[in-house]
């Protein structure tokens, strides 16, 4: 029973990571740096709460959350691809922008600086006690499916083949008539929608939006992408691993064996170890961050 509880808690924590990491994986595989996941998630969470608040339907919330992600993703895509702006700078800026714009509209729509009112969501707020209750949430199932689906898209479809080609050698792809920029636009905007779903899940699970509620989850997702060597399935496993570490930390908190902060560091330490190549080198897509002329 404890094992089941542990598993349930792990999945619950992993869902937002899985969505955001899926977004990060597709954008980075297409060659666009994805420091924006945090901002996309926050935008998605706020969009979902807005939609759910005004219509009373969490389903509308999903749609408005995705819409917010598409919007932020488009900003990222246009500035990085059309204007060839530095993708690291744009990533940082979109995260700042997302924090600011959600706070601004939190004030404008709900006259609060900290949180929205309670909105319709999935599951009851007390579902934490019941291991199975969270399974009522359709986003959980979608979240568990997202990485296998993405793996299929990237490895088995024509679009995926083109994404891989564009992220590795855009000139070669262009020379055989692959529309490089169009592939990148689709990948980046899709990453906005996917990462936003991570935020939508958080907001609808908690039935409200709170200021900066994503709390660095976008960066954990990015860490999972890097630790998973830009492969959707491995990134998904990394998400589950990081979530399990967090679950462990929550369960150990009472026992006070390891300080929670050290458990929280695990994803970041593993990622640094991975990029330093100490244990098996993690090599990014070759054209990552480079906009071709």
């Amino acid at each position, binding site marked *: 029973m404890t094992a089941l509880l542990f598993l349930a808690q792990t999945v619950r924590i992993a869902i937002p990571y899985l969505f955001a990491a899926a977004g990060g994986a597709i954008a980075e595989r297409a060659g666009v740096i994805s420091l924006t996941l945090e901002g996309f998630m926050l935008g998605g969470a706020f969009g979902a709460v807005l939609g759910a608040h005004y219509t009373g339907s969490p389903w509308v919330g999903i749609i408005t959350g995705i819409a917010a992600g598409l919007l932020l993703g488009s900003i990222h895509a246009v500035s990085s691809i059309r204007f060839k702006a530095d993708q690291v700078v744009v990533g940082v800026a979109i995260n700042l922008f997302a924090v600011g714009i959600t706070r601004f509209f939190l004030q404008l729509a709900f006259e609060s600086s900290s949180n929205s009112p309670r909105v319709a969501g999935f599951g009851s707020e007390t579902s934490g006690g019941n291991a199975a209750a969270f399974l009522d949430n359709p986003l959980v199932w979608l979240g568990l499916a997202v990485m296998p689906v993405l793996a299929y898209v990237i490895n088995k479809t024509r679009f995926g083949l083109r994404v*891989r080609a564009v992220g590795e050698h855009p000139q070669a792809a262009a020379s055989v008539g692959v529309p490089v920029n169009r592939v990148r636009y689709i990948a980046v905007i899709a990453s906005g929608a996917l990462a936003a779903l991570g935020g939508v899940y958080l907001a609808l699970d908690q039935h409200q939006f709170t200021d900066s509620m994503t709390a660095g989850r976008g960066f954990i997702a990015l860490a999972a992408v890097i630790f998973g060597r830009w492969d959707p399935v491995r990134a998904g496993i990394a998400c589950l691993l990081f979530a399990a570490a967090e679950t462990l930390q929550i369960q150990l908190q009472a026992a006070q064996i390891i300080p929670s902060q050290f458990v929280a560091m695990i994803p970041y330490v593993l990622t640094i170890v991975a990029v330093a190549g100490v244990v098996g080198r993690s090599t990014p897509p070759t054209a990552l961050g480079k906009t071709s002329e």
Partner: protein
Amino acid sequence: MSDTIALRLTAIDKRFGPVHANRGASLVVHAGEIHALVGENGAGKSTLMKILSGMMPVDSGTIEVGGRDVTGWTTADAIAAGVGMVHQHFMLVPTLTVAENVVLGREPVTGGRFDRARAEHDVKMLCEQSGLDVPPDRLVADLSVGEAQRVEILKLLYRGARTLLLDEPTAVLSPPEVAELWKVLRRLRDGGATVVLITHKLDEVMAVSENITVMRAGETVATMATRETSPEKIAKAMVGRDVDLAVRNDRPPATAAHGTAALEVRHLVVRGARIEKAVHDVSFSVAAGEILGIAGVEGNGQTELLEAIAGIRNVTSGTIVLGGQDITRRSVHTRGEAGLSHIPEDRHRRGLILDYSVAENLILGQQHRYTTSGLLDRDAIEQHARHCTIEYDIRPADPSLPARALSGGNQQKIVIAREMSRAFTVLLAAQPTRGVDVGAIEFIHAELRKARNNGKAVLLVSAELKEVLTLSDRIAVMYGGRLVAMFSRSEASEEVIGPFMTGAKRERVA
């Protein structure tokens, strides 16, 4: 070969700013032949082929393919009409498989998904038909250079190309791979394909082509049937005058006549970006007071050789001795202190920092000499800059301008001024007059002679054979990473050296 004309280019003219790359060039290629397009560096061969393949618009002239006027077409049009080009630099995605690379852009799709099995099957069929042997499911990253080139050809065949343009296809291949390529090209020709082969290696021309068109200075100066010609005749057409065929192969390499060896290179082996031995067992020495010129077509190891001597490329084996001191594993800085000066071949990437001022560039590599306890000595730098701008006639004479703002000739003068005005015993000069105007060329030549006359040892590498001949006291020829011949000035001429540069003749130099 049939009598049908596959390609006809008439009176092609193309300018790049002041450079007149094609001057009324014409080319006729019959269907089903292997046609060699030969000429020295800069003769306009690549430009002509880029125009034909739709990569560049033409200024004037007409292009006909299969009797149809296609002047002004695009690459896509060309591929649709079955005309495709294999470039010197491969356009392959290393992380994709052979089959994926071949079908990219025209992927077979079944029920919304990429049909990998069909792609691999199609590529396999294509391999069998063409004799190009590459496993379709291998990653391109794991292929040898020769195999990668086969994938490039497969890409064209997959798109239905019947006319293949190959730009210097053997530059990166080992001899067995070259033989394999010839086999494939012959088989394709026998299957009815038309091949245009750009090269400046005469042995290759004789080995594989049916007809030859020679280009010189942007013009097509001669067309001949390979069976009825000889390397000597081709070489004559390439350089534009009679060729002395009686090269005495038994001539011992000239020895240094002027004093002791200032620079000595023994059995040097250097790894290149794509080739294991870009420099292959090279030995020579340069004496104080002489200019040793290395002639050769670009890409035969000269760049790697000079970078290894300068200390910016690792040496696999062999030794480099400067003024009696072994510097093989020493830092760039130590080499500079030991008396090495270096005019690098690419001033935009290595020789200059384009956003630095002229004055700052004039101390690059010498910065420690213009420093007092860690601080840049601005007076000394300014004085040096003033001196150099006057002495070397750098215009405009404003050392505070960024180097980027100067013309190519004046940028090169910055490099020359910097490397000549320092204390040195050995000067490496790589392509010292590339992309500079005539006035600057004369000036740079005079500077190199002055250095020699002042007792410096000068190692000159240039793709301009005339430049090597005018300046050098001894001339070595580099081909395929090796020194294949060494001549004294009196023995050397374009006619004598040409066959060695193109691999038509070789003679091992100890």
